Protein backbone atom coordinates (compact mmCIF):
# COMPACT_ATOMS: atom_id res chain seq x y z
CA UNK A 1 0.00 0.00 0.00
CA UNK A 2 2.68 2.46 1.05
CA UNK A 3 4.37 2.90 -2.28
CA UNK A 4 7.20 5.40 -2.37
CA UNK A 5 6.26 8.01 -4.98
CA UNK A 6 7.58 11.56 -4.94
CA UNK A 7 9.03 12.74 -1.65
CA UNK A 8 9.57 16.42 -2.40
CA UNK A 9 5.88 17.15 -2.69
CA UNK A 10 3.86 17.28 0.52
CA UNK A 11 0.53 16.54 -1.13
CA UNK A 12 -0.27 15.34 -4.62
CA UNK A 13 -3.56 14.49 -6.26
CA UNK A 14 -3.53 12.65 -9.58
CA UNK A 15 -6.75 12.29 -11.57
CA UNK A 16 -8.74 12.10 -8.35
CA UNK A 17 -12.41 11.36 -8.85
CA UNK A 18 -15.21 10.70 -6.38
CA UNK A 19 -18.63 9.36 -7.28
CA UNK A 20 -21.27 8.74 -4.63
CA UNK A 21 -23.88 6.08 -5.25
CA UNK A 22 -27.25 7.48 -4.22
CA UNK A 23 -30.76 6.01 -4.55
CA UNK A 24 -31.37 8.38 -7.46
CA UNK A 25 -28.21 7.31 -9.28
CA UNK A 26 -24.49 8.11 -9.13
CA UNK A 27 -23.50 11.68 -8.20
CA UNK A 28 -20.10 12.98 -9.22
CA UNK A 29 -18.76 14.99 -6.26
CA UNK A 30 -15.25 15.46 -7.63
CA UNK A 31 -14.72 15.13 -11.37
CA UNK A 32 -11.00 14.94 -11.98
CA UNK A 33 -8.60 16.84 -9.80
CA UNK A 34 -4.87 17.16 -10.26
CA UNK A 35 -2.50 19.23 -8.15
CA UNK A 36 0.79 19.18 -6.33
CA UNK A 37 1.43 21.10 -3.15
CA UNK A 38 4.97 21.85 -2.01
CA UNK A 39 5.98 21.33 1.59
CA UNK A 40 5.32 24.40 3.73
CA UNK A 41 2.83 25.98 1.33
CA UNK A 42 -0.45 27.42 2.53
CA UNK A 43 -2.97 26.62 -0.22
CA UNK A 44 -6.58 27.75 -0.31
CA UNK A 45 -9.23 25.96 -2.30
CA UNK A 46 -11.86 28.41 -3.37
CA UNK A 47 -15.13 27.52 -5.00
CA UNK A 48 -18.89 27.73 -4.95
CA UNK A 49 -21.00 25.58 -2.60
CA UNK A 50 -21.37 21.99 -3.67
CA UNK A 51 -18.26 21.92 -5.85
CA UNK A 52 -16.74 19.02 -3.91
CA UNK A 53 -14.18 20.96 -1.86
CA UNK A 54 -15.09 19.20 1.40
CA UNK A 55 -15.11 15.79 -0.26
CA UNK A 56 -11.65 16.51 -1.62
CA UNK A 57 -10.43 17.41 1.87
CA UNK A 58 -11.88 14.22 3.36
CA UNK A 59 -10.13 12.19 0.67
CA UNK A 60 -6.81 13.87 1.49
CA UNK A 61 -7.39 13.04 5.17
CA UNK A 62 -8.08 9.43 4.18
CA UNK A 63 -11.60 9.58 5.62
CA UNK A 64 -13.24 9.05 2.24
CA UNK A 65 -11.91 6.73 -0.43
CA UNK A 66 -11.27 7.95 -3.95
CA UNK A 67 -13.37 6.38 -6.71
CA UNK A 68 -10.33 6.56 -8.95
CA UNK A 69 -7.01 8.36 -8.98
CA UNK A 70 -4.48 8.66 -6.18
CA UNK A 71 -3.55 11.06 -3.40
CA UNK A 72 -0.15 11.03 -1.74
CA UNK A 73 1.08 12.65 1.45
CA UNK A 74 4.85 13.02 1.67
CA UNK A 75 5.14 10.50 -1.13
CA UNK A 76 3.01 7.85 0.52
CA UNK A 77 -0.30 6.91 -1.02
CA UNK A 78 -3.29 7.69 1.20
CA UNK A 79 -5.24 4.50 1.85
CA UNK A 80 -6.77 5.11 5.29
CA UNK A 81 -7.17 7.78 7.99
CA UNK A 82 -4.08 9.99 8.19
CA UNK A 83 -3.08 10.30 11.82
CA UNK A 84 -0.70 13.16 11.17
CA UNK A 85 -3.24 15.49 9.63
CA UNK A 86 -4.63 18.21 11.89
CA UNK A 87 -8.23 19.03 11.07
CA UNK A 88 -10.59 21.94 11.53
CA UNK A 89 -14.23 22.13 10.50
CA UNK A 90 -16.88 24.80 10.13
CA UNK A 91 -18.18 23.82 13.58
CA UNK A 92 -15.51 23.77 16.31
CA UNK A 93 -16.80 20.28 17.38
CA UNK A 94 -15.46 20.69 20.91
CA UNK A 95 -16.63 18.34 23.67
CA UNK A 96 -18.86 20.43 25.96
CA UNK A 97 -17.99 18.43 29.08
CA UNK A 98 -14.25 18.93 28.72
CA UNK A 99 -12.27 21.97 29.73
CA UNK A 100 -10.51 24.01 27.06
CA UNK A 101 -7.17 22.36 27.92
CA UNK A 102 -8.67 18.86 27.83
CA UNK A 103 -10.28 19.65 24.48
CA UNK A 104 -6.88 20.57 23.08
CA UNK A 105 -5.50 17.29 24.47
CA UNK A 106 -8.42 15.31 23.01
CA UNK A 107 -6.59 13.89 19.94
CA UNK A 108 -3.78 12.60 22.14
CA UNK A 109 -6.17 11.29 24.77
CA UNK A 110 -8.07 9.38 22.06
CA UNK A 111 -4.92 7.38 21.48
CA UNK A 112 -4.36 6.97 25.21
CA UNK A 113 -1.04 8.80 24.96
CA UNK A 114 -1.38 11.85 27.21
CA UNK A 115 1.97 12.55 28.86
CA UNK A 116 3.52 15.48 30.69
CA UNK A 117 5.19 16.40 27.39
CA UNK A 118 1.91 16.51 25.48
CA UNK A 119 0.40 18.51 28.32
CA UNK A 120 3.20 21.06 28.07
CA UNK A 121 2.68 21.22 24.32
CA UNK A 122 -1.08 21.77 24.72
CA UNK A 123 -0.38 24.51 27.23
CA UNK A 124 2.03 26.32 24.94
CA UNK A 125 -0.50 26.06 22.07
CA UNK A 126 -3.14 27.63 24.32
CA UNK A 127 -0.75 30.51 24.97
CA UNK A 128 -0.18 30.83 21.23
CA UNK A 129 -3.92 31.15 20.50
CA UNK A 130 -4.30 33.60 23.43
CA UNK A 131 -6.51 31.31 25.48
CA UNK A 132 -4.20 30.50 28.36
CA UNK A 133 -6.44 32.38 30.80
CA UNK A 134 -9.39 30.23 29.66
CA UNK A 135 -7.72 26.81 29.95
CA UNK A 136 -10.06 25.58 32.70
CA UNK A 137 -13.27 26.99 31.19
CA UNK A 138 -15.89 24.90 29.40
CA UNK A 139 -16.53 25.63 25.68
CA UNK A 140 -19.98 27.10 26.43
CA UNK A 141 -18.27 29.94 28.33
CA UNK A 142 -16.33 30.94 25.20
CA UNK A 143 -17.29 33.04 22.17
CA UNK A 144 -17.49 31.51 18.69
CA UNK A 145 -14.08 32.88 17.70
CA UNK A 146 -12.46 31.59 20.89
CA UNK A 147 -13.94 28.13 20.29
CA UNK A 148 -12.41 28.03 16.82
CA UNK A 149 -9.06 29.04 18.34
CA UNK A 150 -9.38 26.04 20.69
CA UNK A 151 -10.08 23.90 17.61
CA UNK A 152 -6.95 25.32 15.95
CA UNK A 153 -4.83 24.48 19.00
CA UNK A 154 -6.37 20.99 19.00
CA UNK A 155 -5.52 20.56 15.30
CA UNK A 156 -1.88 21.41 16.06
CA UNK A 157 -1.46 19.38 19.25
CA UNK A 158 -0.27 16.23 17.47
CA UNK A 159 2.32 18.32 15.63
CA UNK A 160 0.76 17.17 12.34
CA UNK A 161 2.59 17.30 9.04
CA UNK A 162 -0.39 18.86 7.29
CA UNK A 163 -3.23 21.07 8.41
CA UNK A 164 -6.63 20.56 6.77
CA UNK A 165 -9.22 23.28 7.36
CA UNK A 166 -12.74 23.10 5.94
CA UNK A 167 -14.34 26.56 6.08
CA UNK A 168 -13.28 27.01 9.71
CA UNK A 169 -14.39 30.63 9.93
CA UNK A 170 -17.56 30.63 7.85
CA UNK A 171 -19.91 30.40 10.85
CA UNK A 172 -18.38 33.48 12.46
CA UNK A 173 -19.51 37.09 12.14
CA UNK A 174 -17.56 39.27 9.68
CA UNK A 175 -15.48 41.12 12.30
CA UNK A 176 -14.53 37.98 14.26
CA UNK A 177 -13.79 36.29 10.96
CA UNK A 178 -11.26 38.96 10.02
CA UNK A 179 -9.61 38.67 13.45
CA UNK A 180 -9.40 34.90 13.08
CA UNK A 181 -7.81 35.29 9.65
CA UNK A 182 -5.11 37.57 11.09
CA UNK A 183 -4.59 35.20 14.04
CA UNK A 184 -4.28 32.19 11.74
CA UNK A 185 -1.75 34.03 9.54
CA UNK A 186 0.32 34.91 12.63
CA UNK A 187 0.18 31.38 14.06
CA UNK A 188 0.84 29.75 10.72
CA UNK A 189 3.97 31.88 10.35
CA UNK A 190 5.40 30.30 13.49
CA UNK A 191 4.67 26.72 12.37
CA UNK A 192 4.80 26.90 8.54
CA UNK A 193 2.93 23.64 8.17
CA UNK A 194 1.67 22.54 4.80
CA UNK A 195 -1.94 23.67 4.91
CA UNK A 196 -5.08 23.27 2.85
CA UNK A 197 -7.72 25.85 3.62
CA UNK A 198 -11.18 25.56 2.11
CA UNK A 199 -13.18 28.76 1.91
CA UNK A 200 -15.83 30.73 0.07
CA UNK A 201 -14.14 34.02 0.86
CA UNK A 202 -11.83 35.32 -1.87
CA UNK A 203 -10.23 37.93 0.42
CA UNK A 204 -9.58 35.35 3.14
CA UNK A 205 -7.98 33.07 0.55
CA UNK A 206 -5.69 35.80 -0.82
CA UNK A 207 -4.69 37.08 2.61
CA UNK A 208 -3.75 33.67 4.00
CA UNK A 209 -2.35 31.75 1.05
CA UNK A 210 0.75 31.17 -0.96
CA UNK A 211 -1.45 29.67 -3.66
CA UNK A 212 -5.15 29.74 -4.42
CA UNK A 213 -6.80 26.92 -6.35
CA UNK A 214 -10.24 27.64 -7.75
CA UNK A 215 -12.53 24.66 -8.03
CA UNK A 216 -15.36 24.77 -10.54
CA UNK A 217 -18.77 23.28 -10.29
CA UNK A 218 -19.92 20.63 -12.77
CA UNK A 219 -17.42 19.39 -13.62
CA UNK A 220 -15.70 19.76 -10.23
CA UNK A 221 -12.13 20.26 -11.29
CA UNK A 222 -9.41 22.79 -10.57
CA UNK A 223 -10.00 25.60 -13.05
CA UNK A 224 -7.49 28.12 -11.79
CA UNK A 225 -4.17 28.03 -9.93
CA UNK A 226 -2.94 31.43 -8.75
CA UNK A 227 0.24 32.21 -6.83
CA UNK A 228 -0.09 34.96 -4.20
CA UNK A 229 3.04 37.11 -4.24
CA UNK A 230 2.86 38.96 -0.90
CA UNK A 231 5.76 38.70 1.54
CA UNK A 232 5.37 37.09 4.94
CA UNK A 233 4.68 37.91 7.70
CA UNK A 234 1.58 39.55 6.28
CA UNK A 235 -0.47 42.22 7.92
CA UNK A 236 -3.87 43.70 7.08
CA UNK A 237 -2.26 46.55 5.13
CA UNK A 238 -1.74 44.27 2.10
CA UNK A 239 -5.42 44.63 1.38
CA UNK A 240 -4.65 48.21 0.33
CA UNK A 241 -2.10 46.92 -2.20
CA UNK A 242 -3.40 47.34 -5.80
CA UNK A 243 -2.24 43.78 -6.56
CA UNK A 244 -4.58 42.51 -3.84
CA UNK A 245 -7.54 44.04 -5.61
CA UNK A 246 -6.36 42.77 -8.98
CA UNK A 247 -6.13 39.23 -7.61
CA UNK A 248 -9.51 39.66 -5.97
CA UNK A 249 -11.20 40.69 -9.23
CA UNK A 250 -9.39 38.00 -11.19
CA UNK A 251 -10.48 35.21 -8.81
CA UNK A 252 -13.97 36.60 -8.58
CA UNK A 253 -14.26 36.49 -12.37
CA UNK A 254 -13.18 32.83 -12.48
CA UNK A 255 -15.73 31.89 -9.82
CA UNK A 256 -18.41 33.75 -11.72
CA UNK A 257 -17.50 31.87 -14.85
CA UNK A 258 -18.07 28.54 -13.12
CA UNK A 259 -21.35 29.58 -11.50
CA UNK A 260 -22.62 31.16 -14.69
CA UNK A 261 -22.82 34.76 -13.45
CA UNK A 262 -22.28 37.18 -16.35
Amino acid sequence: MLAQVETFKAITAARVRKVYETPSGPVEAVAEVDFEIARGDFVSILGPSGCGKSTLMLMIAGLESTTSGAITLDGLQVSGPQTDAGMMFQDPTLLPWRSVLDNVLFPIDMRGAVSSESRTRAESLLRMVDLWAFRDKRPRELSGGMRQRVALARALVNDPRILLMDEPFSALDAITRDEMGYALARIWDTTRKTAIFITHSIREAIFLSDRVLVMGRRPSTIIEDVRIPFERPRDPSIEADPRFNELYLHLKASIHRTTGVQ
Partner: protein
Amino acid sequence: MNGIVNNSDLAPTSAASARAPLPAPSRPSRLGVLRGQARLVVLPVIAAALVITGWEAVVRIKQIPNTLLPAPSAVAIRLTETLPFLLGQAVPTTLETIASFLISMVLGISLAVLICKSRLMRDALYPNIVLFQLIPKIALAPLFIVWLGIGSTSRITFGVFISFFPVVVATLTGLMSVDRDLLRLCKAVGADESRIYAKVRFPAAVPHLFSGLKIAITFAMIGVIVGEFITAQAGLGYMILFAASQAEMTLIFASIVVLCVIGLVLYGIIVMAEALALKKYGA
Protein backbone atom coordinates in the same frame (compact mmCIF):
# COMPACT_ATOMS: atom_id res chain seq x y z
CA MET B 1 -10.39 41.53 4.77
CA ASN B 2 -13.79 39.99 4.55
CA GLY B 3 -15.29 42.56 2.29
CA ILE B 4 -18.12 44.86 3.14
CA VAL B 5 -18.61 46.10 6.67
CA ASN B 6 -22.02 47.66 7.15
CA ASN B 7 -21.44 51.04 8.76
CA SER B 8 -24.94 51.24 10.20
CA ASP B 9 -24.03 48.26 12.44
CA LEU B 10 -21.57 50.49 14.22
CA ALA B 11 -23.85 53.53 14.61
CA PRO B 12 -24.33 54.47 18.29
CA THR B 13 -28.12 54.34 18.13
CA SER B 14 -28.77 52.79 21.51
CA ALA B 15 -25.98 54.48 23.47
CA ALA B 16 -28.23 57.24 24.85
CA SER B 17 -31.16 55.00 25.72
CA ALA B 18 -28.87 52.48 27.43
CA ARG B 19 -27.93 55.12 29.97
CA ALA B 20 -31.55 56.06 30.74
CA PRO B 21 -32.86 54.75 34.07
CA LEU B 22 -34.74 51.48 33.78
CA PRO B 23 -38.49 51.74 34.33
CA ALA B 24 -39.75 50.30 37.61
CA PRO B 25 -41.07 46.72 37.27
CA SER B 26 -44.75 46.81 36.36
CA ARG B 27 -47.63 44.38 37.05
CA PRO B 28 -47.58 44.17 40.85
CA SER B 29 -49.45 41.01 41.87
CA ARG B 30 -50.78 39.70 45.17
CA LEU B 31 -48.28 36.85 45.07
CA GLY B 32 -45.54 39.24 44.03
CA VAL B 33 -43.77 38.65 47.34
CA LEU B 34 -43.05 35.09 46.24
CA ARG B 35 -40.01 35.08 44.02
CA GLY B 36 -37.85 32.48 42.30
CA GLN B 37 -37.50 29.05 43.88
CA ALA B 38 -39.99 29.66 46.69
CA ARG B 39 -42.66 30.58 44.18
CA LEU B 40 -42.01 27.37 42.22
CA VAL B 41 -42.63 25.26 45.32
CA VAL B 42 -45.28 27.23 47.18
CA LEU B 43 -47.70 27.83 44.29
CA PRO B 44 -48.17 24.16 43.31
CA VAL B 45 -48.58 23.22 47.00
CA ILE B 46 -51.28 25.85 47.44
CA ALA B 47 -53.05 24.63 44.28
CA ALA B 48 -52.96 21.00 45.46
CA ALA B 49 -54.16 21.97 48.95
CA LEU B 50 -57.10 23.82 47.40
CA VAL B 51 -58.14 20.75 45.39
CA ILE B 52 -57.92 18.45 48.44
CA THR B 53 -59.86 20.94 50.58
CA GLY B 54 -62.50 21.17 47.85
CA TRP B 55 -62.73 17.37 47.69
CA GLU B 56 -63.14 17.19 51.49
CA ALA B 57 -65.81 19.92 51.39
CA VAL B 58 -67.81 18.26 48.60
CA VAL B 59 -67.78 14.86 50.35
CA ARG B 60 -68.95 16.42 53.66
CA ILE B 61 -71.59 18.77 52.25
CA LYS B 62 -73.06 16.21 49.84
CA GLN B 63 -72.67 13.47 52.49
CA ILE B 64 -71.16 11.07 49.95
CA PRO B 65 -70.77 7.61 51.53
CA ASN B 66 -67.24 6.30 52.23
CA THR B 67 -67.91 3.29 50.02
CA LEU B 68 -68.29 5.59 47.00
CA LEU B 69 -65.78 8.38 47.56
CA PRO B 70 -64.03 8.72 50.93
CA ALA B 71 -62.99 12.15 52.20
CA PRO B 72 -59.23 12.85 52.27
CA SER B 73 -59.42 12.97 56.08
CA ALA B 74 -60.90 9.44 56.18
CA VAL B 75 -58.12 8.24 53.88
CA ALA B 76 -55.52 9.85 56.13
CA ILE B 77 -56.95 8.10 59.21
CA ARG B 78 -57.04 4.73 57.42
CA LEU B 79 -53.51 5.30 56.18
CA THR B 80 -52.11 5.89 59.66
CA GLU B 81 -53.96 2.84 61.01
CA THR B 82 -52.75 0.49 58.27
CA LEU B 83 -49.36 2.00 57.47
CA PRO B 84 -47.16 -0.86 58.80
CA PHE B 85 -49.30 -3.37 56.91
CA LEU B 86 -49.26 -1.35 53.68
CA LEU B 87 -45.49 -0.83 53.92
CA GLY B 88 -45.15 -4.61 54.19
CA GLN B 89 -47.19 -4.94 50.99
CA ALA B 90 -45.05 -2.24 49.36
CA VAL B 91 -41.86 -4.30 49.71
CA PRO B 92 -42.49 -6.80 46.85
CA THR B 93 -43.93 -4.05 44.63
CA THR B 94 -40.90 -1.83 45.18
CA LEU B 95 -38.33 -4.59 44.76
CA GLU B 96 -39.95 -5.88 41.57
CA THR B 97 -40.12 -2.33 40.18
CA ILE B 98 -36.42 -1.77 40.90
CA ALA B 99 -35.53 -5.16 39.39
CA SER B 100 -37.54 -4.38 36.23
CA PHE B 101 -35.93 -0.97 35.96
CA LEU B 102 -32.35 -2.22 36.39
CA ILE B 103 -32.82 -5.02 33.86
CA SER B 104 -34.40 -2.53 31.42
CA MET B 105 -31.49 -0.18 31.86
CA VAL B 106 -28.83 -2.82 31.16
CA LEU B 107 -30.80 -4.41 28.33
CA GLY B 108 -31.82 -1.08 26.81
CA ILE B 109 -28.32 0.40 26.81
CA SER B 110 -26.83 -2.82 25.41
CA LEU B 111 -29.36 -2.97 22.60
CA ALA B 112 -28.79 0.71 21.82
CA VAL B 113 -25.04 0.14 21.53
CA LEU B 114 -25.60 -2.89 19.32
CA ILE B 115 -27.89 -0.91 17.02
CA CYS B 116 -25.51 2.04 16.97
CA LYS B 117 -22.51 -0.17 16.11
CA SER B 118 -24.06 -2.23 13.36
CA ARG B 119 -25.66 -0.75 10.30
CA LEU B 120 -27.35 -4.11 9.63
CA MET B 121 -28.86 -4.23 13.13
CA ARG B 122 -29.98 -0.62 12.84
CA ASP B 123 -31.77 -1.16 9.55
CA ALA B 124 -33.31 -4.43 10.74
CA LEU B 125 -34.31 -3.51 14.30
CA TYR B 126 -34.85 0.20 14.64
CA PRO B 127 -38.08 0.49 12.61
CA ASN B 128 -39.49 -2.43 14.60
CA ILE B 129 -38.59 -0.81 17.90
CA VAL B 130 -40.28 2.42 16.89
CA LEU B 131 -43.37 0.49 15.76
CA PHE B 132 -43.36 -1.51 18.98
CA GLN B 133 -43.60 1.75 20.92
CA LEU B 134 -47.04 2.23 19.41
CA ILE B 135 -48.48 -1.09 20.60
CA PRO B 136 -50.63 -0.84 23.76
CA LYS B 137 -48.31 -3.20 25.60
CA ILE B 138 -50.62 -3.51 28.63
CA ALA B 139 -52.86 -5.66 26.43
CA LEU B 140 -50.11 -8.27 26.27
CA ALA B 141 -49.85 -8.71 30.06
CA PRO B 142 -51.94 -11.94 30.21
CA LEU B 143 -49.52 -13.58 27.75
CA PHE B 144 -46.73 -13.26 30.28
CA ILE B 145 -48.83 -15.10 32.87
CA VAL B 146 -49.39 -17.92 30.40
CA TRP B 147 -45.70 -18.11 29.56
CA LEU B 148 -44.06 -17.43 32.90
CA GLY B 149 -46.66 -18.32 35.55
CA ILE B 150 -47.97 -16.19 38.39
CA GLY B 151 -44.71 -15.59 40.25
CA SER B 152 -42.58 -12.47 40.41
CA THR B 153 -40.69 -13.56 37.27
CA SER B 154 -43.66 -12.82 35.05
CA ARG B 155 -44.30 -9.44 36.73
CA ILE B 156 -40.64 -8.38 36.44
CA THR B 157 -40.49 -9.57 32.85
CA PHE B 158 -43.62 -7.63 32.00
CA GLY B 159 -42.19 -4.55 33.75
CA VAL B 160 -39.04 -4.89 31.64
CA PHE B 161 -41.10 -5.44 28.52
CA ILE B 162 -42.89 -2.13 28.81
CA SER B 163 -40.05 -0.05 30.27
CA PHE B 164 -37.02 -0.88 28.16
CA PHE B 165 -38.11 0.61 24.83
CA PRO B 166 -37.82 4.20 26.10
CA VAL B 167 -34.28 3.39 27.30
CA VAL B 168 -33.28 1.99 23.89
CA VAL B 169 -34.71 4.92 21.96
CA ALA B 170 -33.28 7.60 24.27
CA THR B 171 -29.82 6.01 24.52
CA LEU B 172 -29.64 5.44 20.79
CA THR B 173 -30.63 9.03 20.09
CA GLY B 174 -27.85 10.14 22.44
CA LEU B 175 -25.20 7.82 20.96
CA MET B 176 -26.09 9.00 17.45
CA SER B 177 -26.17 12.68 18.42
CA VAL B 178 -22.40 13.02 18.04
CA ASP B 179 -21.41 15.44 15.28
CA ARG B 180 -20.22 13.71 12.10
CA ASP B 181 -17.12 15.90 11.87
CA LEU B 182 -16.20 15.04 15.47
CA LEU B 183 -16.39 11.31 14.60
CA ARG B 184 -14.21 12.00 11.57
CA LEU B 185 -11.72 13.71 13.81
CA CYS B 186 -11.70 10.66 16.12
CA LYS B 187 -10.96 8.39 13.14
CA ALA B 188 -8.32 10.78 11.86
CA VAL B 189 -6.41 10.72 15.15
CA GLY B 190 -6.51 6.93 15.15
CA ALA B 191 -8.97 6.34 18.00
CA ASP B 192 -10.42 2.83 18.29
CA GLU B 193 -14.17 2.18 18.61
CA SER B 194 -14.18 1.37 22.33
CA ARG B 195 -12.43 4.63 23.12
CA ILE B 196 -14.87 6.57 20.92
CA TYR B 197 -17.72 5.03 22.92
CA ALA B 198 -16.11 5.65 26.30
CA LYS B 199 -14.92 9.19 25.67
CA VAL B 200 -17.33 10.61 23.09
CA ARG B 201 -20.54 8.68 22.44
CA PHE B 202 -21.50 7.72 26.00
CA PRO B 203 -20.77 11.13 27.54
CA ALA B 204 -22.77 12.74 24.71
CA ALA B 205 -25.63 10.31 25.41
CA VAL B 206 -25.87 11.04 29.14
CA PRO B 207 -28.60 13.73 28.99
CA HIS B 208 -30.67 11.58 26.60
CA LEU B 209 -30.12 8.45 28.68
CA PHE B 210 -31.56 10.07 31.77
CA SER B 211 -34.69 11.25 30.00
CA GLY B 212 -35.17 7.60 28.99
CA LEU B 213 -34.52 6.33 32.53
CA LYS B 214 -37.09 8.71 33.99
CA ILE B 215 -39.73 7.28 31.68
CA ALA B 216 -38.51 3.74 32.35
CA ILE B 217 -38.90 3.93 36.14
CA THR B 218 -42.54 5.02 35.88
CA PHE B 219 -43.25 2.41 33.19
CA ALA B 220 -41.58 -0.33 35.26
CA MET B 221 -43.89 0.47 38.18
CA ILE B 222 -46.94 0.44 35.92
CA GLY B 223 -45.86 -2.95 34.60
CA VAL B 224 -45.42 -4.44 38.05
CA ILE B 225 -48.77 -3.11 39.32
CA VAL B 226 -50.62 -4.41 36.27
CA GLY B 227 -48.90 -7.75 36.90
CA GLU B 228 -50.09 -7.68 40.50
CA PHE B 229 -53.64 -6.91 39.40
CA ILE B 230 -53.64 -10.14 37.46
CA THR B 231 -51.54 -12.55 39.45
CA ALA B 232 -50.37 -11.58 42.87
CA GLN B 233 -51.24 -12.69 46.37
CA ALA B 234 -49.30 -9.76 47.81
CA GLY B 235 -48.17 -6.29 46.83
CA LEU B 236 -49.91 -2.95 46.59
CA GLY B 237 -51.52 -3.72 43.22
CA TYR B 238 -53.05 -6.80 44.79
CA MET B 239 -54.16 -4.76 47.84
CA ILE B 240 -55.98 -2.28 45.59
CA LEU B 241 -57.82 -5.06 43.75
CA PHE B 242 -58.62 -6.89 47.00
CA ALA B 243 -59.89 -3.70 48.69
CA ALA B 244 -62.06 -2.95 45.65
CA SER B 245 -63.69 -6.37 45.90
CA GLN B 246 -64.54 -5.58 49.56
CA ALA B 247 -65.69 -2.02 48.73
CA GLU B 248 -62.96 -0.76 51.09
CA MET B 249 -62.51 2.59 49.36
CA THR B 250 -60.38 4.16 52.07
CA LEU B 251 -57.95 1.23 51.83
CA ILE B 252 -57.71 1.67 48.05
CA PHE B 253 -56.85 5.32 48.43
CA ALA B 254 -54.40 4.62 51.27
CA SER B 255 -52.62 2.06 49.03
CA ILE B 256 -52.53 4.60 46.20
CA VAL B 257 -50.97 7.18 48.51
CA VAL B 258 -48.22 4.71 49.43
CA LEU B 259 -47.67 3.87 45.73
CA CYS B 260 -47.40 7.57 44.90
CA VAL B 261 -44.77 8.12 47.59
CA ILE B 262 -42.72 5.13 46.39
CA GLY B 263 -43.01 6.33 42.78
CA LEU B 264 -41.89 9.82 43.76
CA VAL B 265 -38.92 8.53 45.76
CA LEU B 266 -37.71 6.27 42.92
CA TYR B 267 -38.15 9.08 40.39
CA GLY B 268 -36.41 11.50 42.77
CA ILE B 269 -33.37 9.21 43.03
CA ILE B 270 -33.01 9.24 39.25
CA VAL B 271 -33.46 13.02 39.09
CA MET B 272 -30.68 13.41 41.67
CA ALA B 273 -28.40 11.05 39.75
CA GLU B 274 -29.21 13.05 36.61
CA ALA B 275 -28.32 16.33 38.30
CA LEU B 276 -24.94 14.87 39.33
CA ALA B 277 -24.28 13.46 35.85
CA LEU B 278 -25.29 16.67 34.08
CA LYS B 279 -22.93 18.66 36.26
CA LYS B 280 -20.16 16.66 34.64
CA TYR B 281 -21.56 15.87 31.19
CA GLY B 282 -24.18 18.57 30.60
CA ALA B 283 -23.65 21.06 27.79
